[in-house]
């Protein structure tokens, strides 16, 4: 049985935040008498993550995903509750703990802007106490996996966003961490660069059995990488479980477009008891529940003269969008 590598119990986090009224009056008031209030951004959450799992954190902007990630990697002190990552208390930032983790943020960079990425890699290698030979070996291996080569020797400021992100990944993985915290890693990347990055993460997880915690607003990242998702809503966990179960729950029916050979067949099908959404000439769209899709299609193909049929999955963004605005999902 796989061990829990991350264990979070009754975790809460509050921030003191000052608010300001609009206009000059508000500005003067804010300058002399700043009103601060304590805002609880994470409210009593608990979960655990097993070694080698890829878990997606889903939530609207400001839901608390990044705060959770930052507490897990030890950047922010929790206000209440406990966190254990790889057997360490993250906020103590012990050397052995830091050698085990990495944080990659799509909107922030650690590479030295005026120099080629290779210089940053060797700098990081010295920080992680790797000798030159070992560093060279790891850079070669990772650059092959990431499919970057010439870019390593061009100044960072001359690289495209996709090339830069690949280099950021390499810089963040040179110490071969066991746990990866990724905060919107595909932000701003084009479709091909997003796909390359996802493929790399899959490969990395498969080869090293690294645990990956990921936040992303691109649903393709979540669906292609994560079997399990944790949905965060206003600082609480609204769902923690398998992604496919969530999708089934949220979209229990599929739409099937059936093209009949003749309009008479379409009329026959319309009156045969299926849940019809619409009918245009010989094309008819019906809704079928997920659990009866195979039997229903078999019946249709056996009893009607069908020219073609298309099964339409509901758009994943639309389905997940429902999660982001709901407080609780019991599945």
């Amino acid at each position, binding site marked *: 049985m796989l061990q829990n590598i991350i264990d979070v119990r009754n975790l809460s986090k509050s*921030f003191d935040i000052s608010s300001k009224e609009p206009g000059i009056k508000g500005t003067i008031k804010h300058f002399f008498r700043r009103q601060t209030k304590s805002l609880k951004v994470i409210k009593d959450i608990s979960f655990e993550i097993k070694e080698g799992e890829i878990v997606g954190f889903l939530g609207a902007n400001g839901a608390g995903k*990044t705060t959770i990630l*930052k507490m897990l*990697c*030890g*950047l*922010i*002190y929790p206000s209440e509750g406990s966190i254990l990552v790889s057997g360490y208390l993250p906020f103590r*930032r012990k*050397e*052995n703990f*830091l*050698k085990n*983790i*990495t*944080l990659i*943020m799509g*909107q*922030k*960079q*650690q590479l*030295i*802007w*005026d*120099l080629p990425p290779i*210089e*940053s890699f*060797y*700098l*990081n290698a*010295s*920080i*992680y*106490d790797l000798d030159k030979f070992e560093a060279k070996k790891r850079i070669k291996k990772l650059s092959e996996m990431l499919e970057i080569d010439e870019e390593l020797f061009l*100044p960072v400021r001359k690289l495209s966003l996709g090339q830069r992100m690949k280099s950021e990944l390499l810089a963040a993985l040179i110490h071969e961490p066991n746990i990866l915290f990724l*905060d*919107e890693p595909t932000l701003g990347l084009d479709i091909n660069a997003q796909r390359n990055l996802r493929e790399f993460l899959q490969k990395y997880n498969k080869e090293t059995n690294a645990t990956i915690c990921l936040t992303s607003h691109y649903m393709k990242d979540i669906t292609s990488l994560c079997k399990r998702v944790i949905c965060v809503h206003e600082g609480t966990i609204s769902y923690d479980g398998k992604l496919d179960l969530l999708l089934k729950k949220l979209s229990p029916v599929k739409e099937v477009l059936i093209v009949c050979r003749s309009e008479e067949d379409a009329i026959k099908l319309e009156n045969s008891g299926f849940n019809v959404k619409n009918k245009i000439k010989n094309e008819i769209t019906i809704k079928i529940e997920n659990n009866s899709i195979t039997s229903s299609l078999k019946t249709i193909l056996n009893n009607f003269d069908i020219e073609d049929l298309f099964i339409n999955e509901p758009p994943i963004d639309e389905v997940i969008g429902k999660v982001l605005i709901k407080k609780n999902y019991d599945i």
Partner: protein
Amino acid sequence: MNLRKYLKVYKKFLHTSLASEFEYKTNILVDLITAILSLIGSIFLLSIFFQNNGYIGGWKFEQALIIQGIYTILNGITNTWFNPNLTEIVKHIREGTLDFVLLKPIDSQFFISLKKINPSGFLEIMLGFFLLLFCIRINQINLSLSFLILSLITISCSICILYSLWFFISTTTIWFVKTWNAIEVLRSFLYIGRFPLNSFSFSLRVFFSIFIPIAFITTIPSEVFLGLSQLWKILLEVIVASVFLITSRKFWLFALKFYSSASS
């Protein structure tokens, strides 16, 4: 602390920051010219003060040049290490890139204090040393081992005090987010360090000795150069430097508990 690792990392810091700076050759050239002109301007200003009166606060022009020499070395160190690194702390905190520093298995204070280097500051350090050598000649100072050791101790203490003051102010960014002005005030106070402490009124002397110890930074090392310094003053400078260094370290570690990172 693994000293070998820290030396290795520092070697990399030197390499990467020099390589970054050498990407912009014109900028380095302008910085070098500025350093030379700034020293000439300072000496010219000092000579104007001494034009009508041979002495200021009991110091002759030739003696006051020693203070200028030490100030130039310290200013060179400021421009080489403190300015490029410690002003970055504010940026790191405002933009949240301190996250990357805190997640590295290396001391965060070491990282943010020494990562960058501005090579044009080296020229100022060299100019300061040349000026001091010139002062040693014109003031007919006897170079003995004890003189060299005491000079080294007091100048090192001055560097520590200056670093700690600057680092302390930069650390407050964790709460106040923007502290550029406080750093500018500190820099302008440092200009005062070009003049002998005795040239100020009693109240200002107290202020610059206790509240902002500029007096310790240039005057005491200069007194050592002239053989005027008393042992208690040197000991006091060592104590002040140690207290400042330890306090700035403790303050940094305390402040990190309040670091909330920038939002994404």
